[in-house]
Every structure is written in C-alpha cells, then in structure tokens.
C-alpha cells in the first residue's frame, strides 16, 4: 500500500478525516522549509502538500502568489525542492508528501525525469493544476510507472459526464476544489460541499479531500464530518508570511495554527455523534 492509501485508511479506521496541509516549498527560504514541514507534522497534519513555486501561478490567490515570489527570490530550484523532500523522508518515514504545482516546472526536463526524481526523493503524489485529463498522455503514465500517485482535481464545474475522465488515472485521493475560483479567497457553502462530496463518493472509492477557502478550525470540522480529508493552504501560507514579516519563527507559528485545525478535524465526528 502506498503512504497515501495507508494514511487515509488509518484515518478512516480512527473514524476521522485526514488533515492535509499546504505550504509553498522554499518559502521564506529553502533552508527554513524543513522546520516548517516538521511543524506541520508536530501540529497534527496527516498529509503534506508541498507547493512548487512558479512565476505564473494563475490558479492561486494573493497569499500563494506572494509565497511563490518569496520562494523564488530566495533561490528555490526544482533540485532544492527534491532535496527538501529527501531530507523530510529521513525524519518522517510514514508521512505522505504530495507536490502541488503547475505543468511547466514539472515537464521542463521531461515527465520521465520528473517522475523518477519524485520516486527517488520519496514524493508520494503529484497534483498538477494545469494538466487536465485531456493533456495527460505523458505525465500521468510516467508517474504511475514509478508508483507515484497522480491526484486529480474535481471542481464545481466538473459534471457527471466529465467525472469519469477525471477519475481515470487518478490515485491516492481525489481533491475537490470546493469553489470555482482561486486559492484562499472565497469559501464554499457547507451545503454545496456536502452535496458535491456525496456525488463524488458515488463515483469513486478513492478518498475525497476538500480544499480551497478552508481557513478556520470550525470550517475544517464541518467539512471533516462529510469528507475523507480537509485541505488547508492559504491560511497557513499567510501565517508564514506574517511571522517572517514580524521577525518571528515561522515554524512555531505554523505549529500554532495547525494544532487547533488538527484537533477540530479529529474531534469533528465525535462532536457530531455526541
């Protein structure tokens, strides 16, 4: 079983959703990232999404745009991102790491190169924002060949006719983008999330994680009652930015925001039962 499968299965066995946390790799610097990743784990994150910075992140809101710029200005490269993962793997044998980013940095040296580098570094899954199933003749197969999951995105505009194409070749989990929009800005109505998750789960046995616009423990708990995973990104990225700007330790700030999110996700279904 892959680390993603194992992790979602373990969370399900514990009767709870998984907490998936996103930070931009190399923000504020490649050297600062390992401690931030450790803080995510210490705070209770089950899955780490590591953002690959890109000059043109057209699906991201201001928080992640700025994080990408900070990271690139600090000299983050594709090589340094893989080093960060390799290094993380030596400290955390079981925590899955998913790289999330855009097509161009992923295919720059060829999908084969990227897939092999992922496998070698200990990356468990890849989310590529701008390679839809229609253009996935190379990257998906290359990742599958080396045992790395390709996590696909379903959105409010993915209708029933389109869903099978999205699911075909998707593994690890399915990421439901709960708002038609960019990261970190709007927030979906709970009712629409519940409806969408039910619709998706009718079509797949993969775990369904819900993200985009999830900021507070309260929101996370509500989603955790119906979904297999809750993704929090921009809210954590903003905490990193604020800590750096204030001269504080970003890792400590990250642990402090993740811990209550984790507690909320863990307690969500007990609270509901009680």
């Amino acid at each position, binding site marked *: 079983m892959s680390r993603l499968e194992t992790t979602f299965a373990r969370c399900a066995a514990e009767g709870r959703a998984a907490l998936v946390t996103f930070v931009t790799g190399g923000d504020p610097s490649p050297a600062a990232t390992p401690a931030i990743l450790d803080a995510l784990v210490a705070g209770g994150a089950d899955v780490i999404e590591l953002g690959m910075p890109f000059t*043109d992140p057209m699906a991201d809101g201001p928080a992640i745009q700025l994080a990408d710029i900070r990271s*690139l200005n600090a000299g983050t490269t594709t090589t340094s991102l893989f080093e960060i993962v390799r290094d993380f793997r030596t400290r955390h044998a079981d925590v899955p790491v998913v790289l999330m980013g855009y097509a161009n940095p992923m295919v720059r040296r060829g999908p084969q190169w990227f897939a092999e580098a992922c496998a070698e570094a200990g990356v468990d899954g890849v989310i590529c924002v*701008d*390679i*839809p199933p*229609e253009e996935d003749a190379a990257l998906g197969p290359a990742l599958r060949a080396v045992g790395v999951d390709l996590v696909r995105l379903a959105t409010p505009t993915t209708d029933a006719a389109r869903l099978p194409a999205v699911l075909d070749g998707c593994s690890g989990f399915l990421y439901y983008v709960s708002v038609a929009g960019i990261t970190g800005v709007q927030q979906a109505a709970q009712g629409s999330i519940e409806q969408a998750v039910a619709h998706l789960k009718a079509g797949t046995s993969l775990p369904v994680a819900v993200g985009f616009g999830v900021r507070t423990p309260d929101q996370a708990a509500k989603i955790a009652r119906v979904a297999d995973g809750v993704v929090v990104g921009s809210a954590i990225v903003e905490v990193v930015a604020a800590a750096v700007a204030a001269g504080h330790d970003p890792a400590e700030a990250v642990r402090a925001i993740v811990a209550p999110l984790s507690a909320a996700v863990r307690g969500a279904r007990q609270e509901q039962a009680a």
Partner: protein
Amino acid sequence: MTIANTFRAQPDAQGHFGQFGGRYVAETLMPLILELEKEYRRAQADPAFEAELDWLMKHYVGRPSPLYYAERLTETIRASAEAGHGAKIYLKRDELNHTGAHKINNCIGQILLAVRMGKTRIIAETGAGQHGVATATVAARFGLPCVIYMGARDVERQSPNVFRMKLLGAEVRAVESGSKTLKDAMNEALRDWVANVHDTFYIIGTAAGPHPYPELVRDFQSVIGREAKAQIMEAEGRLPDLLVAAIGGGSNAIGLFHPFLDDADVKMLGIEAAGHGLSTDKHAASLAGGEPGVLHGNRTFLLQDEDGQIAEAHSISAGLDYPGIGPEHSWLHEIGRVQYESATDREALDAFQLLCRTEGIIPALEPSHALAAVARKAREMKADEIIVANLCGRGDKDIFTVAEALGVAI
C-alpha cells in the same frame, strides 16, 4: 482517396498543432473551454453568424482595409540598394481599422460568440492597450460590462489607451503582480475567469491560450490574408514573393499568413522583438531564445530558465512584450514553413521614423519591427519582387514612448 498536403488543416481535434497548442487549463475551466469549442463549431455552420460578422466588419470596422503600394518607401530603399534590387513594398493597412489596429477583427468575432453563449460580462488582458481598446469598444457596442486587465508597467507607458478604455466604459484593473506586463495581465484575467465562469466571456487578444482560442483568433484574423490575397491579385496579377509581419503572440501574423500557407511560392517572415539584442536577457524573442513549455493554456515556445520558471520579456513595444508565442507559429517554425527573425528596439525605432517620413504614416511600434525587416529584405530582393507587410496598428499611442527613446521632451 488521397488527402492533399496542406498546412491549413491544423489544429487537430484536440487543439494540437503538431506538439504545440492543447488545453492546459485548470479543471474548473475545462468544461467552459469545451463548451466554447462546441459553440464555435455551431457558429461556423450558421450562415447568420457569418452574415453578422461580415456586416460588422464592413460597416463598423471599415473593412476591407486597403493594400497600399508604398512607392516612396520602395524608392528610398532602392536608392541604397544594388542596381536592379529593391522589392516593391505593399502595406496591408490594418491600422486604418476602427480603433487603429487589427485587434478589432478578433474582438468582433469573439463578442458575437459571447452573445450566442448568453454571457453577460466581458474580460480581457491587454499589453499595449490595443486589444483592451478593441475589447472595450465591442463591449460598448453590444452593451456588456467589461473589465480589462493590464500590467501596471503597461498602464504607465500606454496612458492614452488607458484613458480610451475608460471613455468606452470599461474598468481597467492595473496588475501589480510579477513583471507587471502582458503575461501577468493574462494570469489575472484567468483568475477572474475561473472565479466567474457562469457569466463571463474571456476575449483573448492573441492567437494563443487554450484550444479553441488559437484557432478561432486565427480564423477571425484571417480576413487580413484573404483580403490581401485578392487585392494583390488585382494590383499585380500575381501572389507576393514575401509576407512580413511582427510577432508578439502572433495574431496579426497568422491572420496574414494563414490564407497563403499552401501557396508554395510565397515565403513568409515573422519578426520577433529582439529588444536590446538577442545576446542580452532583454528581449521578447521566444522562438529565437526560448524552448517549448506550457503556459497560459498552451504548449509553445517560451522564454524560461532551466527549472521552467518564466523569464521576463522586454521590448520597447508593449504589444510584443510577452515571453511566449501562439502555438501555430511554434509549429510553423518547427516544420520550417515560415521563417522567423527579429528586430531590436533600435531597428524598430529607425523603421518607425522611416515610414513617417517616406509615406506620411505613423506606424505602431509593433509593425515597426516588421518594417525594419522589410527594409533589410527589400534591399536584397530584386526590383520585380513583391513584399506584402502587415501594418497592423497605428502609432498615435506610441508617440510618448518614441519621444522618450529619441530623447525628445514633449
């Protein structure tokens, strides 16, 4: 049955021009792109769509634009050429269109599609502001609210066009992210679109972006080449030897070239912006200095580093200041049907002044790059050869930039 060899049958059903093009967009946008393609196919099969487009092109845009024999420019070049040299230069006068550039050809077509699809809000990106002005114009004409994204740096260097857009009722949003130019404006327009998928139509300004945009923009701009073909036959009784056009994203060039692609005797030359020179890092020549990659919905040649981070482009012309190029040009470059060269800021400025003084026409800085190439090619060609160059925009918007570059205070 054998199918004749043609360069005009691209893209394929998935929107690929060879290895280029495609639909590299976020999942949220995929259903929209597919719906746009369906609607475009329906429109292509609908005589009423073509009739309305033709009527607007004639009565609103002012087409056909003239094909003008630039006699004084031709004679000036001949004066410094070897005896018997100096090709006859014709200019396709798309700067005479309503709004002063070729951009309106595409905007008319796209807004008709928007109306067919029941969309009630228009967005667009703009570099020099010509596409923004053209979009604001058609939005006003069809009574739809319109938001134009423009890099903050371009807002500064193209202030007359910013004011024009506002006069036309558009909201101009200055984009402060990244390099604050055209690519960043396109990112921001895509962000708007993904958040407003239900009511918004994105009028992309060049023959790039996800399929079907490169195809439909080319089709709407091909009116340039179709007219030029008929006009040169009337004027000279034969096809030209060389077509020349400037390339940013490449919509005016593909519009001129496409109807001639299967005419084997017609050579074609696309001119990229070489900025301070191809040997510097300040240029916008994605074919000469870039490599294939994925940006803004399509696979094409891009200025980028070894990690796939997109480089900032530079050109004195805001309309050419883009690190990519339309995917059909990447394909035509790869198969060798069209040649691509470049012209520097300085060469474009010289050509700009040359046309002002020889023909009494102030060209935009974008086609001034093409004119720079025309001047050097015409000199090497025989006097009985013919060049058709696309004068795709007028230069009123550029006089401040040119004055500054020439050290003149106005």
